[in-house]
């Protein structure tokens, strides 16, 4: 379903963030991170098989940048369609080539996935289990942009931890995990695993047992 114009759309939005000094405040997550792993060559031999029309950004810190910027205004000026989802309360940005750009943030403290107003002018859903992504991110230099993505090991770990809560996206995520597993660094994987909560570690152990996947060191 991904066409050439949608790759252009992805880079066009990356450029919009870059030009407004906002790219440094985001982590590209979701399947587009896999595309960046493949494009940058950090995982030799890896090809990203499945991408979606969603581009997801994890906002590193809700209070950054210090001087608030309105992404929705910038995006609207640049020709994007802005949608304030009434049901979820979140802000979504649509591109003319039918891609959906969404932002999320790590949930801290109590509550059930609250929607948070950020200094970036977007209302975002706060989700749990994202700290492994922000704490283990890497910088990819590609086409003149410095883009933060989770390390492939953190990406896989996060996908496994949330897998049972992913509903219809669960199977697709499993395919992504399976395709990335041969390329990840066992030592780094173990290192991140050791810093997870007991509950998260249990999720990984259960997943590996259920999928009959062997992984030395876990």
């Amino acid at each position, binding site marked *: *379903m991904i066409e050439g114009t949608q790759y252009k759309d992805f880079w066009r939005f990356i450029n919009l963030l870059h030009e407004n000094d906002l790219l440094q405040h985001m982590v590209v997550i979701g399947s587009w991170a896999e595309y960046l792993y493949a494009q940058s060559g950090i995982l030799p031999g890896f090809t990203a098989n*499945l991408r*979606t*029309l*969603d581009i997801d950004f994890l906002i590193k810190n809700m209070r950054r940048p210090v001087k608030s910027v309105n992404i929705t205004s910038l995006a609207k000026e640049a*020709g994007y*369609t*802005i*949608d304030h*989802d009434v049901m979820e309360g979140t802000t*979504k940005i*649509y591109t*003319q*080539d*039918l891609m*959906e750009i969404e932002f999320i943030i790590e949930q801290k403290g109590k509550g059930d996935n609250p929607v948070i107003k950020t200094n970036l002018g977007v209302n975002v859903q706060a989700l749990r289990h994202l700290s492994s992504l922000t704490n283990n991110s890497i910088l990819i230099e590609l086409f003149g942009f410095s883009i933060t993505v989770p390390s492939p090991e953190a990406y896989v770990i996060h996908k496994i931890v949330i897998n049972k809560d992913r509903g*219809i*996206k*669960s*199977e*697709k995520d499993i*395919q992504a995990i399976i395709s990335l597993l041969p390329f990840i660094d066992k030592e780094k994987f173990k290192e991140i695993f050791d810093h997870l909560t007991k509950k998260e570690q249990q999720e990984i152990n259960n997943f590996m047992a259920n999928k009959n996947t062997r992984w030395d060191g876990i």
Partner: protein
Amino acid sequence: MTVLDSVLQEEYERSKKMKAAMERELSTLPSGYISKKIINKNAYYYLQRRVGLKIIGNYIPPEEVQQIKDQVAKRKQLEKSIRELEINIKKIERVVK
């Protein structure tokens, strides 16, 4: 549920939401096209649109020409995107049936 089923279902829901948002934005934009007329060597711009059998032209003040041009272009782009979304939605409905 297979990977294909889940991708299709996700895409179906996403397309419908996106179409609704684009239709909302479309309703805020002017319809028609811009025509330029030269009268006594001066350029005048009009927003032309069809109303029934007639073409109605509304004068656009010079300071608003660029804004209206952008809005008309945005409308065309949105109409194209909505047509594509409608095709996507129909395709998925046919596959899922």
